[in-house]
């Protein structure tokens, strides 16, 4: 990727981590990620029914494998259809399971701590939890895909409030998915089947909506997740269109990322190097460019130092961009 400079922002592609794997270093249909301290990244793997390998992968942003934990099933500490992951202030790990309608809790080492969640559509019940995020008070917001609403709980599962219902209007949702907060605690929701992002106050008051159906700049088709950086710029994984749309704090489109993984990740290179036929098979391909691009980007997070991590679901990897600060463009005639 060439440096992207747009309206005072500068982005560079950094590197990619991950590969396709059912255990250990690598992912299988990763659907969400969360950022811990010291460059640690927690990734939830959805797996599938042919290769059921639901688990949390713990890695670093420099592509070191630490551990994985969890497993397939309905028992304590297991997952059936895991959808979302978030960390509380102590870096305990919370995983939402949209089929079991529960939140499972682990410590950072993967030890199971507990669970909560009651299925249903009543107050304090959940149906299809698909996105989770903590606020500064360690309360947790949950997007409920099948109740078409946002609910807020304490981290031990006591109900606080909720808003939203099914529909296309302001404050209504159609199968919402990812969720994020900005520095002020305002809430951003990927309103999936309405092809838009909605912004709310921490109390659920509607503030703004942007995006809209389409494939062009600033347009969205089934957005899966959203993140906000410390300058208020908003990043959306435009799932069906296989791109990331970047908006300014007012919701005006800034730029688009389509994936830039020209070089293989470390684990991916190791896998290819260990299989000489694949080295040769890659040589006979006229262009590897399709491999650079996103295929169903499902989740996005931004680190404190401006790293933008895009979870590239079908490609089992994370593409990382860097929002630069203090960038001085070199003289043009070099």
């Amino acid at each position, binding site marked *: 990727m060439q440096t992207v400079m747009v309206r005072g922002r500068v982005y560079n592609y950094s590197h990619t981590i991950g590969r396709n794997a059912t255990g250990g270093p690598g992912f299988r249909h990763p659907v969400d990620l969360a950022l811990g301290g010291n460059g640690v990244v927690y990734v939830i793997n959805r797996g599938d*029914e042919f290769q059921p390998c639901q688990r949390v992968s713990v890695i670093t942003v420099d592509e070191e494998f630490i551990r994985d934990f969890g497993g397939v099933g309905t028992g304590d500490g297991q997952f059936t259809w895991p959808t979302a992951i978030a960390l509380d202030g102590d870096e305990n790990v919370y995983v939402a399971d949209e089929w079991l309608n529960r939140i499972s809790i682990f410590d950072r080492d993967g030890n199971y701590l507990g669970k909560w969640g009651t299925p249903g559509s009543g107050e304090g019940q959940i149906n299809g939890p698909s996105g989770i995020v903590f606020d500064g008070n360690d309360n947790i917001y949950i997007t409920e895909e099948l109740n078409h609403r946002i609910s807020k709980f304490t981290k031990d599962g006591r109900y606080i409030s909720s808003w939203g219902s099914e529909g296309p209007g302001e404050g209504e949702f159609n199968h919402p998915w990812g969720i994020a907060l900005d520095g002020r605690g305002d809430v951003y929701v990927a309103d999936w089947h309405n092809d838009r992002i909605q912004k709310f106050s921490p109390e659920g008051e509607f503030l703004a909506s942007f995006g809209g159906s389409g494939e062009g700049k600033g347009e969205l088709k089934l957005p899966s997740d959203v993140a906000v950086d410390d300058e208020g710029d908003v990043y959306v994984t435009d799932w069906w269109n296989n791109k990331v749309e970047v908006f300014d704090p007012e919701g005006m489109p800034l730029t688009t990322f389509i994936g830039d993984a020209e070089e293989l990740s470390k684990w991916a290179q190791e896998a290819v190097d260990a299989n000489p036929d*694949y080295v040769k098979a890659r040589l006979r391909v006229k262009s590897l460019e399709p491999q650079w691009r996103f*295929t*169903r980007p499902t989740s996005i997070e931004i680190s404190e130092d401006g790293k933008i991590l895009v979870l590239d679901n*079908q490609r089992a990897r994370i593409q990382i961009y860097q929002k630069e600060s203090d960038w001085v463009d070199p003289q043009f005639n070099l």
Partner: protein
Amino acid sequence: MAEKDIALMSHLMRRAGFGATRDELEARVAKGYEATVEELVNPEEHGIPPIDEGMIFRHNPGYEIPGGNPTNGQAHWMYRLINTPRPLEEKMVLFWHHVFATGNAKVDNCDQLLAQIDMFRKNGMGNYRDLLVLLAKDPAMIFWLDNNENHRDAPNENWGRELLELFSMGQGNYSEDDVKECSRAFTGWTIAAKIPRLPYGRYPWSFEYLPQDHDDGEKTFLGHRGRFNGEDIIDIVVRQPATARFIARHLYNFFVADEVQVPSWLDVAPRDPVAINMLGETFISSGYDMRATLRMLFNSDFFKDESVWFGKVKSPAEVVAGTMRLVQDHVSPKPGMAPIGLETNYQGQALMDPPSVEGWHTGQEWIDSGSLLRRINFVANRVGDTSLPGVKSIIERLAARESLTATEFVDGCIDLMGPARVNDDTRSELIAHVEAGGPARRGATEEERAAFGRRVGEVLQLIASTREYQFG
């Protein structure tokens, strides 16, 4: 609502789709038979949306690029067979998959098979000539029949032969020289090397035409002479009367009544030559338009005639998808779809993995002692599950009637299970069974209502295990 109208609509929906619930049948009868046919053959113009693909892939990300093993791909397609709002469109996908059988056993890229299936979905009710061109460029087909090994200086006749023998005209209508010339015309029609599966998963093949590998010389094909390329060959093929007869016979075998197997078509006359002629004439006069041909078929007397109702042995795909629609299970994404997708394999029809390019033998050959048991158990296990919405609906409809004699109870179950059809002896045995269990009353208490439901489920299971239920 006349029982006869429901029965005819049920026949249409079994053949042009995968069956329908009673609620759907009633709605369609209210709309009218011909209007329903029109909606089936032209769903887009009637505002029938396609299935929500995003909803499928959001909950089952493994379905989109399933890789080498077909399990996820089969679950994906079965989910569509069960839930498509466009049943004929999906039935035609299955039809073309029968005719243009392509198998993952060799291709080893189920995602590429799914791409072919999707091509049938988008074009299966369109123009047959255009479909053949797309088929000739389809990467899974090119690899399956070795056209990537068909070179100017070293022709491979596999695709050329099957195009004539199994995909258009049928045996006996062309010479070995025609096969050779046809194959020469398709030299240079190949696939570009794809990005290998390691380390980030599968990437698609793409069609590639290599003019330097194409034999541009003069060819003689079916009495025509010229420097033919592949599309010229297809243009000649579709104009052959044998092609119209061949496609007509396939349509008749798939939608109307079981024929002998395809290799016998050269020697055995069609069971209804008049119908074959009518279908062939519509096919030709419409310019090879499948939509027009299907419209004619479903509105014809030979299709509506009661003599062909319940005369076809259901294919495994029809058994599985039809049962799931009846009991209304897996009608939205939920875990546990893989075993449903695999079920047709156990009944003798591994979708996207046919036994050979000839496809499956149909009709009575679907049935052997192993597959019969499997078919019966699959259906019986589900219609006997009174927690499933479709079974609940049948129970509620029966429970709504004031009082039921054993005869009424059995007839109600037969009616609401399709209507299904059983012979008189079977019906008498079912009635005797119900009578032996005492009066069939809905009851007032929860326990009595549960017992009533269990008796309904039991009779549905007995109907599912009859010989007659194997026919659709």
